[in-house]
């Protein structure tokens, strides 16, 4: 398993600093949830780790626990499902292998079918994304990410466009399927962070700073109505409200 240290992260936007000298650690095999309002630079941090920083002034020193580069070891899941409308469900799950090599092996096809059954979409292989509901589409995106089998998983508000019940179900599913990976999940929903995170960080203020990691006692996913979750949710919401103007 892979742990990642991010040191001295800084981001400038239109000449002024959004944050600088941020340090945090993604513990190996654990979920880290990064909470913060829009525009605070959460997504930029995530894109930095994903290697998608062409037009951004975000910098940091990234150190993996095995000392190697993160290239090719990161899976990325965005807020939109990013399914390609001209490919069926199965081919969307197989997008990675399709893009890297022209031919997809039968074993990969079998694996993709297995993953689709894992996310509860067995038998929908040939459907086009347009024929799926929002929740189903995000499940396909989840299967596509699992197909990559990368040690570090970055998720950028992946459930924020879903309705409440679908969101809870997908959170449980993701927590179950990504249990042994190192995950960085970005969200603006304190409940989501508290249900899924081994540790919860809050990024806020101007320039933005990170709060000390919050570590609820038991292992995720936690129930929505657990007293500890509810109490911490109240505290986090109050904290977020006080610091926003």
């Amino acid at each position: 398993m892979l742990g990642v240290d991010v040191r001295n992260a800084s981001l400038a936007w239109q000449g002024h600093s959004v944050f600088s000298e941020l340090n945090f650690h993604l513990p190996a095999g654990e979920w880290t949830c990064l909470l913060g309002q829009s525009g605070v630079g959460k997504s930029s941090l995530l894109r930095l780790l994903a290697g998608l920083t062409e037009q951004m002034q975000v910098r940091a020193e990234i150190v993996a626990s095995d000392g190697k580069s993160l290239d090719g070891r990161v899976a990325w899941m965005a807020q939109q499902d990013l399914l390609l409308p001209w490919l069926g469900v199965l081919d969307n799950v197989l997008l990675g292998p399709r893009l890297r090599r022209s031919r997809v092996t039968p074993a990969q096809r079998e694996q993709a079918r297995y993953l689709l059954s894992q996310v509860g979409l067995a038998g929908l292989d040939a459907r086009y994304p347009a024929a799926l509901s929002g929740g189903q589409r995000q499940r396909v995106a989840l299967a596509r990410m699992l197909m990559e089998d990368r040690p570090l998983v970055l998720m950028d508000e992946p459930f924020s466009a879903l309705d409440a019940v679908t969101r809870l179900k997908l959170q449980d599913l993701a927590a179950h399927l990504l249990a042994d990976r190192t995950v960085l999940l970005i969200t603006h929903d304190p409940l989501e962070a508290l249900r899924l995170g081994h540790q919860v960080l809050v990024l806020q203020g101007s320039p933005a700073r990170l709060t000390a990691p919050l570590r609820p006692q038991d292992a995720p996913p936690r129930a929505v109505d657990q007293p500890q979750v509810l109490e911490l949710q109240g505290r986090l919401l109050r904290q977020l409200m006080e610091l926003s103007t």
Partner: protein
Amino acid sequence: MNSLRSLGIAAGLCGLWQLLVWLTDAPHFILPGPLRVLAALYGNIGLILQHAGVTLAEILLGLLLGVLLGLGSALTLIWFRRLRPWMLPILVISQSIPVFALAPVLMLWLGYGMASKVAMATLIIYFPVTAACYDGLRHTPAAWLELARTLGADKRTQLLHIRLPSALPALGSGLRVAASVAPIGAVVGEWVGSSTGLGYLMLHANARMQVDLMFAALLVLSLMAVSLYFLIDWLLRRLMPWQSETLFDDAREA
């Protein structure tokens, strides 16, 4: 249902046409009635088809060349980013030259045969096809390309697997425009100077007051253009099943 409606519209228009002939009492060499035109079509069917074949060949060749050139130019613009500031102004300026004004020169350079008409049709569809393809290729959602990058796709794969398919609907509308404009190019070419083709036949018939033959040729020309449009539309739907699916959904909701 749809074809019934089209037939109804056609019959209604023919009725209006006949009414106009009766009301104005125009001589048949000025405005022949629809039946007279049909008779001229029937009487000269061999002649008309012979000329129609030439025009059809010009249209299809022009369409093929124009689409290939347009797609090629769009791909070049996408692939070689540095060429854009040089090529885009040239493309736009070239559009300010009316293609019709070039027809006599094309005749001079390429002769009275088919080549000048094909060139005419090619030129007239080149810009709309290039613009549609370029726009389609340029407006690939950035997030799709980023996803492809995190999945390890190189620039070529991104073009082939993401940019091109996502531009297909735009390429399709470029192709539809091309299909409806190419016949104009071919016929204008024939008007300026030729010895075959429907344009030539129409000009010739007009000069000899055979207005009924002129209309018959015009009818065949527009039938050809409409069939070409619908053939291409049908092909594009077959090529993009995911698109037609959503189209049907829209129709159902509306």
